[in-house]
């Protein structure tokens, strides 16, 4: 079961598992990375004549066979619409769909399945809160507080509602390491703050925010908090009750599940009080031309035929993560992060962007005189997939005075050998650019 590792003081940079320091092989504290790799069919393929080295996990993770099997099984044996028919298949599909919800609930340790809403992605989860929670309550002059390290998806939805309601978007700054300046955050928590929306972990920098502290500070002033857990959820156990989060947004495709399925956790009392986000079938209790009434949670927020296959695939993905053990995977990734950081820093002209004391799985860097885009193209020809660009976090790029960065991001199946392949590919960049 999940523990409160997502809370402050759990020390992501500290060994939490025996054997974290064991770096000599793919084995980390009994973590058999080769066995894990065998579960991911795509990792066997070649790219430009080289074995695929997939280091773009912060964009999306690869899928284990168990997820692919669950999707095939659904369409070959179970396909029917949910919450409708009295026939057997509809019953099976409904059970599988709502069963996946229970799996998600346990994974995040929510109190009830009613608090788990399926969406398309984390972006939609945040927009749901912006439209159904913030929009009806914000008054002119009110404030929404975010941080300077947010992904565009945790900036733009607030800009939209703030502009409409005459409210203001306030931004808590970060320091040169890419850490949130907590005092500055606290200073911006004022009488008019109606909501805090902040990332658990930065996609561009890897910074892990002290979200338990943030929530405590906000709650002390009666301000609810939305946490964007898109990046954190697949790197560390998250316990929404221990954190005290009011809303927690995550996405399935970064949890080794399919695309098109997102998660919104919301405290039942808040969700109950909110109007629907989208109208249509499934979200109603009754409909007449005069008036419609809403279905109970979570269905009130799930209009139309949902992404049944996506939810089932996500459930299978979470089962897979649990079978591996998220804490063991996290310790493995943390050891790789240390190894990768040292490796990159040893390459002349490389500068790390994002050096927070608590960070996870993200190696964002720039190279002197070489644009990240050129780095990306050259390493791709060596079979190494990394992301280059602004990572949907243009304000972060501006904060660090770079137009873009190159970013290698880790998942449970990555190895030290793959980081060495990245290092070799980067030396090729030096060769090309002299």
């Amino acid at each position: 079961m999940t523990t409160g590792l997502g809370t402050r003081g759990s020390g992501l940079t500290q060994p939490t598992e025996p054997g974290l320091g064991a770096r000599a092989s793919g084995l980390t504290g009994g973590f058999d990375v080769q066995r894990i790799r065998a579960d991911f069919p795509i990792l066997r393929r070649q790219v430009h004549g080289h074995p695929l080295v997939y280091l773009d996990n912060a964009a999306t993770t690869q899928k284990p066979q168990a997820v692919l099997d669950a999707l095939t099984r659904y369409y070959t044996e179970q396909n029917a619409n949910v919450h409708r028919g009295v026939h057997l298949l509809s019953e099976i599909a409904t059970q599988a769909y709502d069963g996946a919800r229970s799996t998600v609930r346990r994974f995040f340790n929510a109190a009830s399945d009613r608090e788990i809403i399926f969406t398309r992605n984390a972006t939609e989860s945040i927009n749901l809160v912006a439209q159904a929670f913030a929009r009806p309550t914000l008054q002119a002059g009110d404030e929404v507080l975010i941080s300077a390290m947010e992904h565009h998806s945790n900036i733009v939805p607030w800009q939209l509602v703030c502009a409409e309601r005459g409210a203001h978007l306030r931004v808590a700054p970060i320091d040169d390491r890419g850490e949130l300046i907590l005092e500055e955050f606290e200073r911006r928590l004022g009488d008019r703050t109606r909501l805090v929306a902040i990332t658990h972990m930065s996609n561009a920098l890897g910074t892990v925010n002290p979200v338990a502290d943030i929530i405590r500070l906000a709650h002390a002033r009666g301000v609810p908090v939305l946490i964007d857990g898109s990046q954190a959820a697949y790197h560390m156990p998250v316990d929404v009750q221990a954190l005290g989060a009011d809303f927690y947004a995550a996405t399935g495709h970064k949890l080794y599940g399919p695309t098109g399925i997102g998660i919104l956790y919301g405290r039942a009392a808040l969700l109950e009080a909110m109007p629907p986000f989208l109208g249509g079938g499934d979200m109603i209790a009754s409909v007449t031309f005069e008036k419609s009434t809403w279905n109970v949670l979570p269905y009130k927020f799930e209009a139309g035929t949902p992404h049944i296959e996506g939810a089932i695939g996500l459930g299978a993905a979470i089962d897979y993560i649990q079978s591996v053990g998220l804490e063991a995977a996290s310790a493995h990734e943390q050891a790789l992060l240390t190894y990768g950081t040292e490796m990159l820093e040893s390459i002349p002209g490389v500068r790390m962007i994002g050096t927070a004391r608590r960070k996870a799985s993200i190696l964002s860097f720039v190279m002197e005189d070489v644009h990240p885009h050129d780095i990306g193209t050259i390493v791709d020809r060596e079979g190494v997939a990394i992301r280059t660009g602004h990572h949907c976090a243009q304000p972060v790029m501006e904060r660090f005075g770079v137009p873009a960065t190159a970013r290698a991001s880790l998942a449970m199946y990555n190895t030290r050998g793959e980081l060495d392949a990245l290092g070799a590919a980067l030396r090729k960049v030096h060769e090309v650019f002299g």
Partner: protein
Amino acid sequence: MSGLNELYQEVILDHNKRPRNFRTIEQASHHAEGHNPLCGDRLSLYVQVAGDRIDDVAFQGSGCAISKASASLMTDAVKGQTVEAAQALFERFHQMVTTPPDQPVENMGKLSVLAGVREFPVRVKCASLCWHTLKAALERKEETTTE
């Protein structure tokens, strides 16, 4: 490596390192901002047109080697040309970089070094950003994107 050598030819690396006409033109008769949302590249292009002739052209901005070299080569290619000739050159360049890599392309002199981007579909926009920006400037549109 053959595709890479094709892409990062000496001429391109040289223009990336020492871009020609990399400056602003005060009071330029035409100006436009180019933007590639994919990578965040921005390019400011200044054109001085007298009569129907491009007297001077210059650019500033940040971008990858391909976009910078392409802009540098473009400014050399269109300076002194008529507006009409520059627009025709845009069409020919566009044709060259969008022709599938297994098909022959016309020789465009120095600009031919950019034919290598055809092997790298996501980089075609890097090479064309400056040309789209030039077209926008000449048509007096202030902003353009590669989208």
